[in-house]
């Protein structure tokens, strides 16, 4: 059997895929954070809770309404994103003129409410969501066994990332969004409905989180606390990459996933902490972040 630095090739590749899959989630979530941050200038602390809500919506939709995975993948982001738009319209808008730290605190409170409510109904132990039949099993690539669902998650997440990039960089709506990020007052003076744009942007960011949640449902146990610990890691990823660039967010997310996966192979004790350690390193060497423009 081929060995890579003293580890069997299959194990190495297995952890590498696992890392890539985690990285895809980091990328999707940090992308959503970056999109929201760009226009609203707030850090959406409820992002983890919204990701968790996405997974729960898929689970409950299947359990009580018989909505299958593929339908959930489309419906859930729309529903949770809509919920996000209501949050923006009725809560965040009221404090938009204040210091942006208040937005962080408000969304933190929302995260506590979502998480606490679901803990009361479903407990903290996770529920299982069945992998759709067509994605069960795996491919034997000769040097490793690749579970089909993981491959699908990678493809779906990256497609979504590229779609977001395309939307923002290559469409008229995206041009508005980028212009609003630069100077929203001037945009409004030109007759663009900026408040609506803000609502849509927040809804889109939240929808991305919910999409990630549906993707994650068959992969990880669906529990009310699944989002919060992930979100803190995503924050570290965001600090490492900086929120200035979309491709930067995607690359950093994937890169950190790979680093985490490899740490699991060679030094499992540090697997939980390695991303934070990378963050410390980046703060020391390049305080603005790898792709960041501001200090």
């Amino acid at each position, binding site marked *: 059997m081929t060995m890579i630095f003293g580890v069997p090739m299959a194990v190495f590749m297995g952890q590498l895929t696992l890392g890539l899959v985690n990285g895809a989630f980091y990328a999707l979530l940090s992308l959503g954070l970056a999109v929201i*941050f760009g226009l609203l200038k*707030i*850090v959406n602390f409820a992002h983890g809770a919204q990701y968790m809500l996405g997974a729960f919506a898929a689970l409950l939709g299947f359990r009580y309404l018989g909505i299958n995975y593929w339908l959930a993948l489309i419906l859930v982001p729309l529903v949770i994103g809509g919920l996000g738009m209501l949050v923006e319209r009725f*809560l965040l808008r*009221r*404090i938009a003129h*204040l210091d*942006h*730290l*208040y937005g*962080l*605190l*408000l969304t*933190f*409170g*929302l*995260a*506590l*409410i*979502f*998480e*606490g*409510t679901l*803990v*009361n109904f479903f407990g903290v132990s996770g529920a299982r969501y069945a992998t759709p039949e067509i994605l069960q099993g795996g491919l034997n690539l000769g040097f490793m066994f690749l579970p089909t669902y993981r491959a699908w998650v990678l493809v779906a997440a990256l497609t979504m990332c590229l779609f977001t990039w395309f939307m923002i960089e290559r469409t008229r709506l995206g041009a508005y969004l980028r212009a609003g990020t630069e100077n929203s007052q001037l945009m409004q003076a030109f007759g663009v409905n900026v408040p609506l744009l803000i609502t849509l942007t927040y809804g889109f960011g939240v929808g991305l989180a919910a999409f990630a949640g549906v993707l994650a449902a068959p992969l990880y146990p669906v529990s009310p606390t699944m989002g*919060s*610990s992930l979100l*803190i*890691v995503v*924050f*570290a990823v*965001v*600090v490492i990459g900086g929120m200035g660039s979309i491709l930067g967010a995607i690359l950093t997310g994937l890169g950190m996933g790979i680093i985490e996966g490899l740490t699991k192979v060679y030094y499992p*004790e540090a697997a*939980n*902490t390695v991303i*934070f*350690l990378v*963050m*410390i390193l980046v*703060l*020391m060497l390049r*305080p603005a972040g790898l792709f960041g423009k501001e*200090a």
Partner: protein
Amino acid sequence: MTESHTLKAPSVVAKRQRRANQRRTLFYIALIVVGLVAPFLAYPVFLMKILCFALFACAFNLLLGYAGLLSFGHAAFLATGGYVTGYLLASYPGLTPELGIIAGTLVATLLGVLFGVLSIRRQGIYFAMVTLALAQLMFFVFIQAPFTGGEDGLHGVPRGNLFGFISLSNNLTMYYFVFAVFLFGYALIQRTVHSPFGQVLKAIRENEPRAISLGYNVDAYKLVAFVISAALAGLAGSTKTVVFQLASLTDAHWHMSGEVILMTLLGGVGTLLGPIMGAGLVVSLQHILSQSPLGNWVSVMLGLIFVVCVLSFRSGIVGELGNMYRKNFK
């Protein structure tokens, strides 16, 4: 602020300052009297919990209220103080509690220097995210480190004899010791806030570029404020461990960092009394809810209070009362 001073005759300024000082002295006396009488009116253990969290919240308030830095990782310092003190007191029976507390506080201070140096490199929300991530790093360290007892935490930490001869097993004695620790921390914070150093901190909070252009080494000021705040949070954690004889992962969890923010916000950011009041309210609320059928809804309630505070109550209870007083009686 400086302009309004130069416009008024110096005597008016002096008079106003004297009045403010008088009010503060009165407030301190009232605080001490209430603190001395309290254990005869309420259960001392409950009061000690409030005092520990009040010190924690005051330490946090020094950073948020006077330096304008929102740390989302203060649980790390509380837990570090608690774990170090707990470990030392449990493994070295000859060690007196005050030495254990000093040791815990010192380690938390060192951690504060480390975290401070790293996190003040970023501003605003990045600062909050960096501190949160660093605190999460410490959380994983505490889970895996051999001396913390992992998921179980440290139990049965002896209270021991203060200075070697005052037994702390009596709750009333323990209370007065905790009260003394609290007053020490509180006095240190007040001294810091009302010193020239504190004035510079406020200047940085109000307008950082201007403070830089005036020649202040902004990063050094922020770092010192961060370290003092971390040290006092550690002191609160160490004292709490001695009181409750345990140290656990709850103190290191990011929920704890959120709770201290809530205490400060609810009471009033940047006020003298606010954090104490906020700590009292949040601890009481948790206590009352945990004994009611709503026991599982604590975190939801805290979240709701957060949202209400941010939406309509941003100066906190003390701040809003102050605004009302100024509006109606001046």
